[in-house]
């Protein structure tokens, strides 16, 4: 069927059972895939009270109805689970080539439950699905795992199964020794994996697609590792069908001409170019969010990167923009370009947020995170937290095993990343639990220095610059998040992107009035749809073009209104998922630091107003159709066709 294959691959690693679920078309129209699909299955099948490390948790990889179509940005999948970092909804997206390959293999999603008795990797070759022995992969970097899997498949292509591979036939299995794999498949197979840091139990293990693309947040990689699942290798041989190929071609032509011109800003410098502008505005998180501008900003900006360590760029599936960076170096830190290069979030989290102006150190830290499978935002903020604790005498050199963990010490930052990944030393083990748990353990003033919402570390955007984004940090179902969120500075200048939602006037970045709350509501719901479809946020399709895209791919007579409602549905189901796990309005809170004014800098004297944020949050609940505790009302659930999800009354 155009847009979706109608087949979800279900794997139970405890029993070894591999099966297919075939939801009706209406399921895809209501939930799209991606975050929508993941939230639906997590809500239905993971009972409240389940521990994230328990085999009963699900690990989900889900592309969406648009994934795999030859259109820029249609390259992504969601990773989903009950998050070991937050105990709430875990949902993050990544790109590259793996997501499209899963659709080409004829699957809309992979849902894994249980836990394998031994380390395992899954091989999917169209409708052949095999659970393979992954003992050789344990403890290996993501780069080594890719090489080992390709070598295994190449050896098989050369003749017979290599010893040690214990394939279980899937639905089309040939039996032992009978499966053959083309040598070209070994080269073309795409690999999703968690890293060795996740194997060791770091709570913010990410999911890695094709070595340099990451579904970074929420610790979904940690859940994958807890199931003894290290990698999913996919080969798919059939491009997804589309309902209206002519319309798709028209959109391709647009992107190849006008679209590409407008994307020039990303092609040359990628997201790293965001460092200096945010710094000038006073919104570059610096030294654990104590400040908003950094004296070393020009050393870690995109222009500096292009001038020094950049060795090339690369793209995702079907995208001509090429925003992804490659970094190569020999000394003082050897850096392998196979792992790509730092995005803005990484340059800030491991750079300015740690007070580090050494670009080589930040790039090395990025490489270690990629090789070990660590979310760079959580890693950077955890180290920044430790640095501030150290400077305030809450940690000494005995606690840091000799490291002078001051802000600005790039070498110490790199060492700490390595230690967190390997869980070496008591402090590193603690930081690998996330700042919330680390602060609770250290005690005292440490709790004030832990920058998180719901246990997920704050990303590299400053609420004292972007106040609506601050509201988004508070109420996001996955904890603090900058992606399904608004960036107020854009809407202070232009509402071009949101006029079709009925938002007609610009709003100052520091405004938290009703118009800002409405903007946040409408745009974040739209982004929940985008993260279900799953589309890249950086490709500048207009909302009208996205509607055309969905119509052209699926053949549905859809509208902006219907797609906005999908987003609202997914946001409400996510909220309900968290309510069922005991998260109440007290979890929708920014750390105190943002309510304190900057002492200096471009935003000197500026703080988020507690009263304004509180009023905005309560107005948001009301606008959502939630009660005063932020619980979706029965009427709202029925309106969104979520009546089946209503929680039993207390």
């Amino acid at each position, binding site marked *: 069927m155009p847009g979706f294959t109608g087949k979800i691959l279900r794997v139970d690693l405890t029993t070894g059972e591999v099966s297919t679920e075939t939801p009706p078309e209406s399921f895809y129209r209501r939930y799209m895939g991606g975050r929508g699909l993941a939230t639906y299955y997590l809500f239905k099948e993971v009972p409240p009270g389940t521990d994230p490390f328990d085999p009963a948790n699900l690990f989900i990889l889900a592309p969406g109805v648009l994934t795999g179509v030859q259109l820029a940005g249609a390259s992504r999948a969601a990773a989903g689970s009950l998050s070991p970092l937050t105990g709430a909804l875990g949902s993050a997206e990544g790109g590259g080539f793996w997501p499209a390959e899963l659709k080409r293999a004829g699957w809309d999603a992979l849902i894994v439950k249980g836990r394998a008795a031994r380390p395992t990797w899954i091989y999917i070759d169209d409708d052949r699905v095999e659970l393979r022995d992954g003992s050789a992969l344990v403890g290996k970097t993501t780069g080594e795992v890719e090489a080992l899997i390709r070598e295994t498949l190449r050896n098989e292509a050369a003749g017979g199964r290599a010893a040690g591979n214990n394939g279980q036939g899937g639905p089309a299995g040939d039996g032992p020794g009978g499966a053959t794999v083309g040598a070209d498949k070994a080269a073309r197979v795409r690999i999703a994996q968690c890293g060795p840091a996740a194997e060791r139990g770091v709570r913010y293990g990410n999911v890695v697609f094709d070595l340099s693309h990451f579904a970074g947040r929420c610790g979904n990689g940690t859940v994958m590792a807890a199931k003894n699942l290290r990698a999913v290798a996919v080969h798919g041989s059939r491009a997804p069908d589309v309902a209206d190929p002519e319309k798709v071609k028209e959109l391709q032509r647009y992107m190849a001409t006008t679209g590409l011109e407008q994307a*020039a*800003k990303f092609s*040359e*410098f*990628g*997201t*790293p*170019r*965001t460092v*200096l*502008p*945010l710094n*000038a*505005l006073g919104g570059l998180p610096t030294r654990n969010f104590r400040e908003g501008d950094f004296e070393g900003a020009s050393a870690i900006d995109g*222009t500096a990167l292009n001038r020094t360590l950049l060795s090339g760029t690369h793209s995702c599936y079907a995208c001509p923009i090429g925003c992804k960076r490659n970094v190569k170096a020999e000394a003082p830190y050897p850096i392998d370009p196979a792992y790509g290069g730092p*995005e*803005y*979030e990484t340059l800030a989290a491991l750079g300015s947020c740690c007070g580090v102006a050494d670009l080589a150190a930040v790039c090395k830290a990025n490489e270690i995170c990629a090789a070990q499978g660590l979310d760079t935002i959580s890693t950077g903020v955890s180290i920044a937290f430790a640095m501030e604790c150290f400077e305030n005498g809450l940690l000494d050199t005995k606690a840091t095993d000799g490291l002078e963990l001051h802000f600005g010490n790039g070498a110490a930052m790199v060492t700490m990343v390595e230690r967190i990944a390997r869980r070496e030393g008591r402090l590193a083990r603690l930081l690998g639990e996330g700042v919330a748990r680390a602060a609770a353990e250290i005690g005292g003033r440490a709790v004030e220095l832990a920058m998180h919402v719901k246990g997920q570390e704050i*990303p*590299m*955007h400053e609420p004292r610059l972007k106040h609506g984004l601050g509201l988004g940090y508070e109420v996001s179902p996955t904890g603090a998040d*900058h992606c399904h969120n608004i*960036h107020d*500075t*854009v809407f*202070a*200048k*232009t509402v071009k992107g949101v006029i079709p939602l009925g938002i007609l006037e610009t709003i100052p970045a520091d405004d938290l009035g009703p118009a800002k709350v409405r903007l946040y509501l409408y745009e974040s719901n739209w982004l929940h749809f985008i993260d279900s479809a799953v589309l890249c946020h*950086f490709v500048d399709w207009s909302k009208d073009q996205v509607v055309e895209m969905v119509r052209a791919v699926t053949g549905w007579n859809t509208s902006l209104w219907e797609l906005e409602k999908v987003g609202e549905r997914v946001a409400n189901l996510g909220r309900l998922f968290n309510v069922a796990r005991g998260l109440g309005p007290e979890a929708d809170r920014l750390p105190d630091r943002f309510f304190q004014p900057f002492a200096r800098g*471009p935003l000197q004297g500026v703080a988020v107003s507690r009263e304004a944020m509180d009023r905005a949050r309560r107005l948001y609940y009301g606008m959502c159709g939630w009660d005063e505790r932020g619980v979706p009302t029965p009427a709202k659930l029925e309106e969104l066709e979520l009546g089946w999800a209503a929680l039993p009354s207390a």
Partner: protein
Amino acid sequence: MNTVTVKALGFLAQRLPEGKAVTLPIPAGGLDVRTAMRLAGLPEEEVFLAVVNGRRVTLDQALAPGDEVTFVPPVAGG
């Protein structure tokens, strides 16, 4: 020297000739930030704010010899 220096950040820098800072003379009647922006070829709809010598200013601000004015685009993130 009776000049000001104009810089731009982020993607706005691509609007400047060769992406480099521009030096503008201050005419007899004076020079404000908005005029400097236009003379440097920067479209107003792509400018979020201007900073002169490190401080945020309005587009009507008059410029003095030796001033450095930096134009900042509206930025989302990454």
